[in-house]
C-alpha cells in the first residue's frame, strides 16, 4: 500500500515527531521552544510530502498501461552493491562512541551519517529514476559530482596543507628554510617535466602525484606525533618592581619587535638614553626639541620607543603612580643593549594629583635621570 517514496517521508516525519518529544522532554526553558517548533515543523512538512507521494503513488505509471512491466522504473534491475549502508553503520557507531567519549568524535560521526544518508538516498533513487538504464547510471553523477568534487578537493587540499604545516613546525628554523626550498624546487621541476613532455602517460602523472601526497601525509602524521619544535618566547616588558627597579644588564631583547614600522610611526615620544647617560624625550610633533617631561591623555594607551645609546645595557622603567591603598604601578622594558631599541606601552587612568608617588619614566641605576609624565 505504501510506496517507496512515501515510506521515506513518513519515516522521516515519525522520526521528527519522536525527536521533538524527546527534545521537549530533555531540555527546558526558553531554549527548547525554537527547537521543538523546528522539529514539529519538520514533522508536518515530511508528513505532507509523504501524503503527496502516497496519493500519487510516487508518480509511477498505472498498471493498465502496455509494456510497463519492462519499461517502468520499478521494473529496472535492483541496484549494485553499495558501500553507503556500511558507512552509515560506522557513522552510527561513531555517534554512540562519541556520545560517551569525546565531542569531536560525535561531531565527525554526525557529518559521516549525514553524508552517508545523502549519498545512499540519491543512489537508491538514481538506480530506478526512470525506465532508461543509461540515463539512470548517469543521473547520479550529474547530481552528486558538483557536490562531491569541491568537497573532496577541499578536504584533499586541507590534508596537504595541514601535513605540510606540521612538517614545517617540526623542523628547526634553518632546515625549515632548506626543506621549503627543496620541496618547491621539486614541484617546479616535476611541473616542468610534465609540461615539456607532452606525451607523459596519464597514469605516470597520477602515480607521481599520489606517491607525493601519501608521502607528505605520512611525514605530516609522523611530525604531528612528535610535536612542534620549541619556540622561544621573547619577553619584551615586565611589570614587577623587583625586575623593573634593578639596573638590568641580563636578559634578552627582541630586536625584531622594535623594528615594526607601523608601531614606530605611532609613538608619543622617543626616549633617548644618550651616551653621556642623560635621558631626554623627543615628542611626536615637536621635532628637534629635547624635553624632560611629556604629556599623555589619561586612560589612553600610549607608546614610547626607548633608544639606548649608552655603553651599557639599560632598561626603561615607567613608574605609573600609587593610587589609594594599591601598590605602585610599574612597567619596564627588558634590558636593552647598547645601540638597540625597545617599545614600552602604558596607560595612566588617573591624574598626577591622585598619585602619592611621582609618575615618571626612569632608567634604573642612573640617579636623577627622569622624564616627568603629566596626566592632566
Amino acid at each position, binding site marked *: 500500500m505504501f510506496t517507496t517514496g512515501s515510506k521515506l517521508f513518513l519515516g522521516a516525519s515519525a522520526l521528527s515527531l519522536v525527536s521533538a518529544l524527546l527534545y521537549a522532554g530533555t531540555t527546558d526553558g526558553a531554549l527548547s521552544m525554537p527547537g521543538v517548533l523546528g522539529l514539529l515543523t519538520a514533522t508536518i512538512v515530511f508528513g505532507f510530502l509523504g501524503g503527496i507521494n502516497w496519493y500519487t503513488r510516487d508518480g509511477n505509471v498505472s498498471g493498465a498501461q502496455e509494456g510497463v512491466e519492462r519499461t517502468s522504473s520499478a521494473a529496472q534491475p535492483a541496484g549494485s552493491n553499495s558501500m553507503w549502508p556500511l558507512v552509515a553503520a560506522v557513522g552510527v557507531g561513531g555517534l554512540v562512541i562519541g556520545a560517551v567519549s569525546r565531542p569531536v568524535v560525535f561531531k565527525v560521526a554526525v557529518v559521516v551519517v549525514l553524508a552517508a544518508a545523502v549519498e545512499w538516498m540519491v543512489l537508491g533513487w538514481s538506480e530506478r529514476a526512470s525506465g532508461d538504464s543509461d540515463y539512470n547510471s548517469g543521473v547520479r553523477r550529474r547530481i552528486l559530482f558538483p557536490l562531491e568534487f569541491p568537497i573532496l578537493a577541499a578536504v584533499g587540499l586541507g590534508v596537504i596543507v595541514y601535513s605540510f604545516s606540521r612538517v614545517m613546525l617540526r623542523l628547526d628554523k634553518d632546515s625549515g628554510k632548506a626543506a621549503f626550498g627543496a620541496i618547491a624546487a621539486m614541484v617546479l621541476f616535476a611541473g616542468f617535466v610534465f609540461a615539456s613532455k607532452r606525451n607523459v602517460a596519464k597514469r605516470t602523472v597520477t602515480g607521481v602525484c599520489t606517491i607525493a601526497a601519501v608521502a607528505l601525509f605520512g611525514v605530516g602524521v609522523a611530525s604531528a606525533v612528535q610535536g612542534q619544535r620549541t619556540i622561544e618566547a621573547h619577553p619584551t616588558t615586565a611589570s614587577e618592581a623587583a625586575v623593573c627597579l634593578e639596573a638590568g644588564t641580563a636578559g634578552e631583547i627582541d630586536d625584531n619587535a622594535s623594528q615594526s614600522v607601523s608601531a614606530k610611526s*605611532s*609613538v*608619543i615620544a622617543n626616549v633617548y638614553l644618550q651616551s653621556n647617560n642623560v635621558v631626554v624625550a623627543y*615628542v*611626536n*610633533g*615637536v*621635532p628637534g626639541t629635547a624635553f624632560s*617631561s*611629556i*604629556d*599623555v*591623555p*589619561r*586612560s*589612553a*594607551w*600610549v*607608546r614610547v620607543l626607548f633608544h639606548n645609546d649608552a655603553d651599557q645595557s639599560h632598561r626603561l622603567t615607567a613608574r605609573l603612580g600609587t593610587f589609594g591603598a594599591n601598590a605602585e604601578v610599574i612597567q619596564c622594558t627588558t634590558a636593552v643593549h647598547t645601540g638597540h631599541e625597545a617599545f614600552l*606601552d602604558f596607560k595612566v*587612568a*588617573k*591624574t598626577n*594629583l*591622585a598619585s602619592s608617588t611621582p609618575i615618571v619614566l626612569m632608567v634604573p641605576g642612573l640617579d636623577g635621570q627622569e622624564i616627568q609624565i*603629566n596626566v*592632566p
Partner: protein
Amino acid sequence: MFVKPSRRRRVAAAAALGLLLAGCAKNAPQDTFDPAGSNARSIDDLQRPVFYVAGVVGIIVFAVVGYAIWKFKDRGQDIPEQSHGNPKLEIALTILPAIILAAICVPTVSQVFSLDKKDNNCVINVTGQQWWWEYDYAKGSECGGVVIPESIVTSAELVIPANTDVLLRITSRDVIHSFWIPRLNGKRDAVPGRLHTLRLQADQPGLYTGQCTEFCGLSHARMRQAAIALNTADFQTWVTNQTEAYTAPEAGTAAAVGQSTFIAQCSRCHQVNGLQDGDGKPVLAEPDLYVLSGAAPNLTNLLTRTAFAGWTFDLLTDECRDTLWNAPPDEFGALYLKGVTAECFNEANLREWIRNAPAMKPMYTDPKNLGSTGGKTRGMPALGLTEAQIDEIIAYLLERK
C-alpha cells in the same frame, strides 16, 4: 496607478532636479569644496581638476553609450556583421586610462606626503571616545606663540589660533573614531593604542564644524565637533581664561549648594580643576571606575563652550547661535569669548541633560545591560535628581566660565 508616459517622464525629471538642487543647500557648513585653510585648499586644488577630468570622461562615456543606444536601436534592420576582438582598440583602451591614472597619481602621491609635514607651531592631543572628543593642551607647550601655563583639558570645541599650523595627535580610548573638519583638512582615524597626526590651519577666525566619520556605535551620529579659530590676542585671552584659578561660588548662594551637590553627584566622573571638598582636599574625578572609556568631559569651563555632549546640543539659544555662526571674522573672536551669557543661555537643553541624559542621546547606561562591562557605562547615566538639585547644579555650572 496608471501614469501616462509623458507624465512619468516629467515626474522623473522633477525628481532628478530635486536631487540636484538638494546638493546646493544654503546651510551646509561641512563643505569639502569650500576650503578655509591651507591644508584643505591644497586638497581642493587637487580634487577639482581630477573631478573635472573625471566629469569630462564621464560625459564622453555617457554620450557614446547614448549614441550607441539610439543609433543601433532595433528598427527591424538586419543583424550587423559580427566581429570578435580588435587588438588596436583594446590596447588603446587599456593604455589611455593607464596614462590618465598615472597623470593623476603623481600629484596625488606628492600631495599625500606634503600634507604629512610635521613642522608646526602648536601640538594638541585629541582623544576620541564614545561619543565625544577630548582636547588637551600640554602644560608648558607653546601654541601659536602663546604659552600654555597649565594643562588645559576641554571637549566639543577645539580652540586653535588662526593662521597657525596646528598639529593634532589623535588617538582613541575605546573604539575607532575618525576626526574630520571638512573645511580645514581631510579625515584621520583615531585608533586605540596608536597616535595619528593631522594638521589643521584656518586662515580666518571662525567656527568650522565636523563630525566623527568612523561608525563607532550607538550615538555615532551624535559625535560631532567644531574647530574654533581665534586670532592670537583672542587665543591668548582664551588660554588665560581656561587656566584661571578656580573661584568657588559665594557662600549661601544657590551655586554654593550646587557645588556640594555637584561633588556628591557628578565629581566621580567629571573633573572641575581646582575644586576642593569641605576639608580643603582636591576633588578628583575617577571616570576610569565608572565609564568604559575611562574619561568624562572636563567641566571646569563648560560655559565657555557653545554646545555639549558631542557638540550635539546647544548651550546657546538659536538666535545667539546664529549670530555667532554668521559673525564676520573680525567680530567672531569677541563674540565667542563672551561665552554663554545669561540672555543667550539655552537652559532647556542643559536641564534636560542633567535630568535624563540617555533620553536625549542614546547611550549604554541601563544597569541591566552593563554585565559585559563590569557595570561601567558608555555615556552618562540618568541620575534621578530632584528639580531643586538640578536648579542648584545649573546655578553652579553657570559660573564655570
